[in-house]
């Protein structure tokens, strides 16, 4: 069974360790915050200028001067701080953020990522994604394994304009958890009920399968 977006987020949440500063991209990554274990200390950074981001405000408490990178109204937890965009990217570029989780339209087997532009069709811009992927030591991509037409989004080479080269370390898709290693996708875990064969068929890039591939824990 292919994972729902929530389940992808749930699985990624297990990668978030105690003491991590984490930047969450728009979309599935934003959901990760809901599934981080309660017994660890984590702080969320939003590149528009807040560290220590909390949940959405209660109805009526929303403040136009307090939003996240997705322009959603948010709250700040005790110990939070506000800062300007330059200092925010000092955190990112300076590798003070421990983990970056973001979405992708394509990922290649050498860790290239494309997520900001479809020539002639869609150009939203890269936002902070290029800074994040060029700087972060630990990048996890949350994505669908295939597009609506069933074509793989895990490729030998990206076909879309790149956001960054050689930077993605791990991909969690609706079908699998993979590590990028020596120019290949190394299969680590399968979604419950999804076979290795299914994953193989959905992956255009080089897929390395070593030994038994366990099912993901998305409890």
């Amino acid at each position: 069974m292919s994972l729902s977006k929530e389940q992808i987020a749930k699985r990624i949440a297990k990668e978030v360790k105690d003491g991590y500063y984490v930047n969450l991209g728009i979309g599935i990554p934003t959901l990760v915050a809901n599934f981080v274990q309660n017994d660890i200390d984590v702080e969320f950074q939003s590149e528009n200028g807040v560290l220590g981001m909390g949940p959405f405000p209660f109805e009526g408490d929303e403040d136009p001067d307090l939003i996240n990178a997705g322009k959603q109204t948010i709250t700040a937890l005790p110990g939070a701080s506000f800062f300007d965009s330059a200092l925010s990217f000092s955190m990112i570029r300076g590798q003070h953020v421990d983990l970056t989780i973001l979405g992708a339209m394509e990922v290649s087997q050498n860790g290239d990522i494309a997520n900001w532009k479809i020539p002639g069709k869609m150009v939203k811009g890269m936002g902070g994604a290029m800074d994040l992927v060029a700087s972060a030591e630990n990048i996890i991509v949350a994505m669908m394994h295939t597009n609506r037409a069933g074509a793989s989004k895990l490729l030998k080479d990206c076909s879309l304009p790149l956001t960054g080269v050689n930077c993605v370390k791990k991909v969690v898709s609706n079908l699998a958890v993979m590590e990028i290693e020596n120019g290949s996708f190394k299969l680590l875990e399968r979604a419950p009920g999804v076979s290795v064969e299914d994953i193989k068929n959905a992956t255009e890039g080089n897929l390395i399968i070593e030994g038994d591939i366990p099912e993901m824990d998305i409890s």
Partner: protein
Amino acid sequence: MINKTVANVQVACEGIQDSMTFMLGGFGLSGIPENSIAELVRRNVKNVTCISNNAGVDDFGLGLLLQKKQIKKMISSYVGENAEFERQMLSGELEVELIPQGTLAQRCQAAQSGIPAFYTPAGYGTEVAEGKEAREYNGKMHILEEAFKADFGFIKAWKGDAAGNLIFKGTARNFNPNMCGAAKITVAEVEELVPVGTLDPNQIHIPGIFVQRIFQGSTYEKRIEQLTVRKRS
């Protein structure tokens, strides 16, 4: 104390001309210089280049200038919230330079700081790096980016005083401090112009030396782009 106060937004915008380059603070619709944008619309200044992280929405923020086709070129990092923008861009009416958000912030700060160029890893190996010098530092490739050059900077702050000192609030701070002093003339509008001496000198985010004109803004709409709330339990 050098007094930077001007009577209103009209005086603050004196000297604005067609074909100039503007910097505008704000992230999404948060912390945007609403009064100055309204004045740019009123003056119907044309052919301008705008350096701003976003391009507003269809009927607010820089979207108001886009509607009236006042903008020749946008330099931004993310423009996904504006249909008119997308239309003008895809049709070729509007020139667009998309750059990484951190590079945008740093190119503003570089202009403010007299740093003409710096290396950053952001964008290496992508379209953004085309035509730019690249160099390896610490085992990683970086590209050389230059400071922006702009004629006017439009800043929105929370509090300010006649000396031009500014304090920002929450995430409405964003690019505003980095753009102060990065253009030839910096125009700051504030929600509250307080008497000189009432701001704690330890807590001033931007000293007045970076600001040429300051005025008390009026009727801030402060529109929320994505209202997301929790139910009270």
